[in-house]
């Protein structure tokens, strides 16, 4: 088990290295484009250009440039965005990360609980009106784009019905750190959490229901019934526990891509200064160092989440543990 774990960590490091090389090459070694000009931003003075060229080593060979870039990203952390008033990129991301983390974690808790409850209930009552209603609700959730749903939520809670007792507590767009005021943090995030979770609830409850229904045909489920166990115990201990393997692998990937900036639309709609919104700003300003940094950040999360999922697999599925 330990060797499987270590092997997985080793693989993760290699993949991360590969991604960093790839991202670097895409941004700084594309033929026909001068990375100096791109880093320095539009209409940069010749002095700035010269400074940037020397600082990033663009007058030296590629491996040196790569090493410089990685040093600036991870060690000295002074990669500077010239397009955006010379702000340092890494602190910017470090500042944005907790916002995204708050948004995604809260949303994930909601979507985990609600989708497991909905999927299990639908599977337990397969074919009944409860099942059909839950499937319909899930489909509605999947069909609503998050930016539209977010705008509607804003419209209702901040404009149309803001003065009623139901929504008068809703603060305007923005973010309050958890450490500063937990209640305000919760108030600012609870609607974004729900909006972001809606689509995932739809997808995950459907997947879980389908998985549980398929599992009900398995021999081991019949054995469990022949043992005289209660239906609830069979569903939870034998059905859900086995479905958890599929569920966790999907969950890990979605969670990671959201942490890496995939919640961009939600962050923009609700004015949350997270990593997604940072990426969005970087893209609109063509802020190359910032784009590169956010891409690296996002890739890191996806790869790490993959590793975590694999390790969870080892814990969840004894068949994987034996390296089969």
């Amino acid at each position: 088990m330990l060797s499987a774990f270590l092997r997985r960590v080793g693989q993760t490091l290699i993949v991360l290295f590969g991604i960093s090389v790839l991202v670097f090459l895409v941004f700084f070694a594309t033929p026909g484009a001068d990375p100096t000009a791109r880093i320095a931003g539009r209409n940069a003075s010749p002095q700035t250009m010269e400074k940037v060229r020397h600082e990033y080593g663009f007058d030296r060979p590629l491996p040196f440039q790569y090493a410089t870039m990685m040093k600036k990203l991870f060690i000295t952390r002074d990669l500077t965005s010239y397009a955006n008033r010379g702000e340092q990129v890494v602190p910017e991301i470090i500042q944005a990360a907790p916002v995204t983390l708050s948004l995604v974690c809260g949303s994930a808790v909601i979507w985990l609980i609600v989708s497991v409850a909905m999927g299990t209930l639908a599977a337990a009552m397969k074919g009944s009106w409860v099942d059909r209603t839950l499937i319909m609700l899930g489909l509605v959730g999947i069909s609503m784009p998050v930016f539209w749903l977010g705008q509607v939520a804003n419209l209702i809670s901040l404009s149309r019905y803001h003065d009623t007792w139901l929504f008068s507590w809703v603060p305007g767009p923005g973010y309050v750190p958890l450490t500063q005021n937990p209640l305000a943090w919760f108030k600012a995030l609870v609607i974004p959490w729900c909006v972001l979770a809606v689509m995932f609830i739809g997808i995950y409850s459907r997947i879980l229901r389908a998985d549980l229904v398929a599992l009900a045909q398995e021999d081991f489920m019949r054995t469990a019934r022949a043992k005289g166990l209660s239906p609830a115990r069979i569903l939870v201990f034998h059905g859900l526990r086995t479905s958890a393997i599929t569920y966790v692998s999907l969950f890990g990937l979605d969670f990671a891509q959201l942490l890496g900036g995939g919640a961009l639309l939600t962050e923009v709609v609700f004015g949350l200064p997270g990593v997604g919104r940072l990426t969005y700003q970087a893209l609109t300003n063509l802020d190359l160092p910032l784009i590169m940094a956010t891409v690296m950040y996002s890739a890191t999360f996806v790869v790490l989440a993959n590793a975590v999922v694999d390790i969870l697999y080892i814990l969840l599925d004894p068949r994987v543990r034996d390296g089969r």
Partner: protein
Amino acid sequence: MAVNFPHSTSQPLLEVKDLCVSIPSYGRSVALIEHISFTLREREILGLVGESGSGKSVTATAIMGLLDTPGLKITGSVRFRGQELVGLSARKMRAIRGRDIAMIFQDPMTAFTPVYTVGWQIDEQIMAHERLSRKQARERTVQLLAEMGVPDPTRTANRYPHQLSGGLRQRAVIAMALSCNPTLLIADEPTTALDVTVQAQILELISTLRDTHGSSVLLITHDMGVVAETCDSVMVLYSGRIAETGLAEALFAHPRHPYTTALLNSIPPFYGERPHRLPAIAGTPPAPHERPAGCAFSPRCHDAQTICSTIPPLSPAGNGQQAACFFSTSGQQEH
């Protein structure tokens, strides 16, 4: 017409009368099994024989109350120690299932939930029916595994299903089935998925259960050889109906139904020269929805006559046997 069983002094444990299971299909009701009646006494091993689709497993799962296809209709009576099981509430049935009646399934590879250890799953059944701590349950689990001939039972209990061989897994399945000392064990083709040497060991194990655990066994199989080795009495099913019943010895010596005869002819003889090719029964058994009027076996029967287009009743055919064939008493099937 009381059939003389070897343990005839013992009480009837399970009495099945006129058990019918039908399922709606395209607006009409299709019978999966029709008028199945039999009696299983204490410590008796009854073999339920027939080809695939003859209704063996349906009969067994109906007795266990495990049939849950929507629209399915079960009529007739299943009395277990005098208690009617057909129409029993789900809660009461659950208390019987696993405690008084246990079932072993065909494929030990898929019978266990893959994510729990074998021991955990046996503990689970014990604790579902008896007020025991996990430690006490585990003690019994280990003891059961040892009785089933599992080497190093303490360690095996802590292993996952995929880590065990097929034979060991089937032993663990049987240990689990026996964990609450059931009076009736239903074994649905317990050896089909195993290789031949392991088959013999498992059959040996099952046939000793009546002495070691006092259990009756309903052994479902399509293998006449298995029946000959282990069973006291036999019931041959064909296309959802009883073709013939009787004591194993008598039935093997003088099959009264042409289907039984054909099944027996398909076993290589114990003595004498072996035939180059074993005789096969021509054709296939009819699917439940295209069963012919009258005797279901008539299209494949050499001796079919016009009278066979009405359903033959199950009638005594001498020697304690009963057969559903108009010619069963005339002795023309004797070989």
